[in-house]
């Protein structure tokens, strides 16, 4: 509120006819029109006084609360934690704070925008200030700010940011990761594997004769196949595998902590599974096969780009060998040497 002594000592005070009484009136009126809760506790944490904001929101009768322990009037308060905090204010003579970001609210008060927010209670920023009244008696002033709006909009913002982040990672058609995010993941997984001396394998997958499939059934037929293949392949993968759309009908899978033998196993399973699938498009039944190239990162200091090149070469070899099959290569030897 207003500083009596400071104001009364000012030269202009007498000219403005500012008296202690008029300053008191100003303070009382501000305190009762403030959109912030004011609650004064004594050193035993009994309520000394509160302002109109709290009286309205807490919906309690003044006569019943004055002189009562704050913990009996507001039983929702976390007693042992708050007592310790209030003690720090009294003992160290320092202010203390509690933000809605750590605790949504301390006092269970209703808020003024009940429809648009998801919380029942008013989100609060609380400040605990040491004050002295009646000749040095230590008291605590608790300020309770309504930050329901801030909390609400922060929540909306976080949600929107999360959705944006997801959207920027996902391929719109197939709902698996897009090439950009997949490559970032490879970068990270590659570094992780190197750091912890763990194996890491890569599968490149390309649907066979996809162009003629598009020609025969139209692009919508092709899209149905792409969506169904990715959904089916996803089911064959572990949670930690990273499955991305590399280009048109080409896909790539990062297999952390997997050696070449394990990766070839997975690739063979995927290859067989795709060949056995029947796609119903309009009245027609579509069959499709895939070629897969597998490579493993070696101990040698190859970059993750080179790992892609090796998997790509293996994929090319699978195609050259007649499609609908898996070809593997270790990244430290070339395809031709194999």
């Amino acid at each position, binding site marked *: 509120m207003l500083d009596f002594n400071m104001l009364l000592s000012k030269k202009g005070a007498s000219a403005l006819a500012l008296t202690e009484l008029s300053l008191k009136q100003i303070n009382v009126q501000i305190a009762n029109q403030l959109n912030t809760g004011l609650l004064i506790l004594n050193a035993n944490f009994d309520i000394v006084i509160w302002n109109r904001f709290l009286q309205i929101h807490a919906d309690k009768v003044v006569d019943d609360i004055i002189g009562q322990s704050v913990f009996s009037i507001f039983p929702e308060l976390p007693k*042992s*934690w708050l007592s310790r905090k209030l003690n720090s204010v009294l003992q*160290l*003579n320092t*202010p*203390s704070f509690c933000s809605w970001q*750590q605790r949504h609210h301390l006092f269970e008060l209703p808020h003024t925008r009940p429809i648009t927010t998801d919380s029942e209670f008013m989100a609060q920023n609380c400040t605990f200030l040491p004050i002295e009244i009646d000749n040095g008696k230590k008291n605590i002033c608790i300020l309770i700010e309504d930050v329901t709006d801030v909390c609400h909009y922060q929540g909306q913002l976080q949600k929107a940011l999360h959705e944006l982040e997801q959207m920027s990672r996902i391929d719109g058609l197939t709902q698996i990761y897009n090439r950009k995010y997949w490559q970032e993941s490879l970068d990270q997984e590659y570094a992780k594997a190197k750091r912890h001396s763990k194996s890491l394998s890569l599968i490149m997958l390309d649907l066979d004769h996809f162009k003629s499939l598009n020609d025969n059934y139209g692009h919508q037929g092709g899209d149905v196949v792409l969506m169904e293949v990715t959904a089916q392949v996803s089911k064959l993968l572990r949670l930690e595998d990273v499955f991305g759309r590399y280009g048109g009908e080409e896909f790539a899978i990062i297999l952390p902590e997997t050696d070449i033998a394990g990766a070839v196993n997975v690739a063979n399973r995927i290859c067989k599974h795709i060949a056995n699938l029947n796609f119903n498009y309009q009245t027609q039944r579509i069959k499709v096969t895939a070629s897969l190239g597998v490579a493993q990162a070696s101990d040698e200091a190859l970059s993750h780009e080179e790992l892609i090149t090796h998997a790509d070469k293996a994929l090319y070899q699978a195609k050259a060998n007649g499609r609908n099959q898996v070809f593997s290569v270790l990244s430290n030897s070339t395809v031709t040497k194999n």
Partner: protein
Amino acid sequence: MKEFHLTEDQQDCLQELINIAMGQASDQLARYLDTFVYLKVPSIESVAAAELIKSLSQQQDTMAIVSQGFFANEGIRGEALLVYQEKDSGRIADLLGYEPGELSQDEQLIDISSILTTTFLNVFAQQIGNQMSYNAPKLLPSVQNNLSQHLQQMTFSWDLALKVNINYQVTDYSFNCNMILLIPGAAILNIKSVLDRILAEF
């Protein structure tokens, strides 16, 4: 830039004020926390903002930084940064006298920071016949990326700052943290005139 640098007398005077404040603060903290709190003699230096950002961002093992703004009469203001490392922060709830599970790790860091900052600065303000007010302390999100961003977005702009580095140690709880008080350019001039006044009275 030169007008921001402290003279030798001013530097000595500030050092002495801080030493006294540290003694009193450590006494108050020891009573409240019921354990011995050791404050290491601080270093006071002028730092360029860019340098400070660089050195803070480069501290690999920094786990968290809590920031709290402070302001007082005579244009004295600044920001306290409390810098924590993972290994020194395991028993803060214990140190503060809270039950385990009563508060999150974030809240523990914010709470202890606020207590250390306000206790010290209150005593320091008394030394110079002033009274300190504080903003609510804030945990800076994800230290590595956001520290420089945060420092650049601080409410006051500063190229040069007075950096007071104080180390807090509570050996019984293997607690250790660094408090860095940053006082921006314009406020340094105000501190200097306060120091000059004290030196004249002395």
